[in-house]
């Protein structure tokens, strides 16, 4: 009996170690590209080799001073601000309508909610480019903004819809029984409770819009190009680590913003229907 117990214990141990190794490997693979890029950003030489032989911060300086990046960053901020805000208002309206009312076309709207990935981004970009050419608007911010609104709308709708579903309908009934007219109940009870959902929807829209490349490549012009498009244009000409430096800045800023948002609004709560309450 004793002799068989010991191998069983060792087997258990091996399994445990193997399990941990698999998890570690998966995590490693996910962050591996980011780590490689981050290290490359500090390479002193003007080619993307790995690992670097000597170290420098010069590519960070170049990332901050290269004119097309500055313009792309600015354009990106403008486009993102408009696109995510418009998407928030429109998406919240749709989400509200789907949650509260029954009407024709509700199914189609719901389908938009659940399958935002069916139409590829380049198709949307190309479609808008063709349409814009008809009205000679291919070089306008409006074109990029409209295109981005369409791209991020499903995500905003989903986020707001989930928050609405999680809201206890009896809260509005309670407000009504206490004398609140519907508008007042919306303002004092429903909206304050929806703020985390609205904000997280807006934040996702903003991140998606700011990072969007495929459709943007079609709908941007020299004057309206966004940062990802400027980066693509850069890498066609140069092969130095500036993009790696830019990536590091990108990751740090996004992670910082998300952490802040999570701290103040508890995003975990609004990302998942099942978890709430």
């Amino acid at each position: 009996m004793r002799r068989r117990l010991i191998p069983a214990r060792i087997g258990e141990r091996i399994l445990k170690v193997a399990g941990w190794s698999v998890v570690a490997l998966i995590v490693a693979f996910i962050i591996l590209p980011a780590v490689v890029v981050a290290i490359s950003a500090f390479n002193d030489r003007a080619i993307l080799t790995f690992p670097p032989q000597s170290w420098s911060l010069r590519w960070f300086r170049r990332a901050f001073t290269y004119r097309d990046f500055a313009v792309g960053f600015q354009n990106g901020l403008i486009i993102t601000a408009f696109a995510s805000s418009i998407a928030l208002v429109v998406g919240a309206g749709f989400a509200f309508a789907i949650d509260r009312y029954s009407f024709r076309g509700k199914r189609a709207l719901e389908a938009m909610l659940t399958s935002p990935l069916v139409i590829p981004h380049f198709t949307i970009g190309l479609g808008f480019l063709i349409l814009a050419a008809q009205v000679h608007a291919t070089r306008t911010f409006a074109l990029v903004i409209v295109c981005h609104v369409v791209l991020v709308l499903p995500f905003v709708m989903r986020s707001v819809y989930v928050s609405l579903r999680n809201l206890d309908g009896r809260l509005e009934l309670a407000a009504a029984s206490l004398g609140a007219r519907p508008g007042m109940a919306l303002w004092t009870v429903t909206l304050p409770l929806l703020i985390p959902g609205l904000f997280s929807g807006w934040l996702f829209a903003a991140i998606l819009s700011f990072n969007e490349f495929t459709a943007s490549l079609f709908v941007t012009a020299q004057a309206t190009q966004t940062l990802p498009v400027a980066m693509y244009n850069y890498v066609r000409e140069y092969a130095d680590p500036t993009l790696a430096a830019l990536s590091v800045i990108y990751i740090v800023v996004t992670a910082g913003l998300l952490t802040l948002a999570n701290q103040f609004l508890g995003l975990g709560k609004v990302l998942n229907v099942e978890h709430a309450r």
Partner: protein
Amino acid sequence: MSSIPPDVASQTRPVGVQIDGVTKRFGDATALHEAWLKIGQGEFMTLLGPSGCGKTTLLNLIAGFLEADGGEIFVSGSLMTETPPYDREIGVVFQNYALFPHMSVAKNVGYGLRMRGVPKREIEQRVAEALALVKLAAFGDRKPRQLSGGQQQRVALARALVIRPKVLLLDEPFSALDKNLRGSMQVELKEIQRKLGVTTIFVTHDQSEALSMSDRIAVMSDGRIRQVGTPDEIYRRPLDPFVAAFVGDVNVLPARLERRLGDMATVALGEGRVQVRAETLDGLVPGAAVDLFVRPDAMRFADADGVLAGTVATHVYQGSHVDVLVDVPAARGGRVTVRVPGHEAPGRWPAGAHVSLDFAAGDAVAFASDAK
């Protein structure tokens, strides 16, 4: 089924809430069939029934959360049909309390007053009074999630009462509380209700809760009000087999109607004869099959000449009393429960003992048998 005439309870006090033939349908299903009910001002009325019986539907209709498909509801004499919930002056305590999670306890309680534009000083004063009433004076700054279930319950009650509602509606308010807390909250609610004299409609599926708290009870099933009466009337003089079986425990004994004489009737139970009230036997002719309903606490052990004979099967000790389960071939289900106060029953009537059972005249109620 027996229909309830609108004036079933001749009330001396003025009418607080009047339900006149209210019907509510959801698609093809009728949730409420022509309900008639008069609730006196300051009365504590309980709507009692199993889930799906229509009691919560009726509550939502009174609150104005649902629109009736027919009939009318009056509160303090005014017709409510065209009045939206926010103008009804009705306080509601929800099953899950529905406290506003983003507001402090004091803000929750003061919400209804702010909606009415009451001056700030007066709001503070009335909120403080309301919180003192429910013994939560020190908790005004807390958020609802920082309170226990019982405390949240009190906040919900204070929030509903602070607007001085014409009617207070409570929808299964104690179902989420544990048994001990439930008991003390029941007493507390009853005291507050009596002190304020607010007309109260209380919805529950718990018959002991209904019996202990109510001035009157309306027993409901399948969207119909089966009987309206005081707890004692409901318990001792059920007009309907559903009411008899739903409220309290009951033994069912198949029997036969022998003859009727005025208000009383004689029922043959085996060799024995039992006198019952005839009011529940309308339309039955002598010879018809009836079911006799007898409460376990009305059953007693006879010396030898009881109407039922059986064998003691087992005992269920309940603290203040013992339920003796007796195998009686003549009873529906083959078994009868006899409730004996104290703890001596197992000694006097041990398992396996042959016993004779009896019950006092007037403790049995007969209904037309539903057995085919």
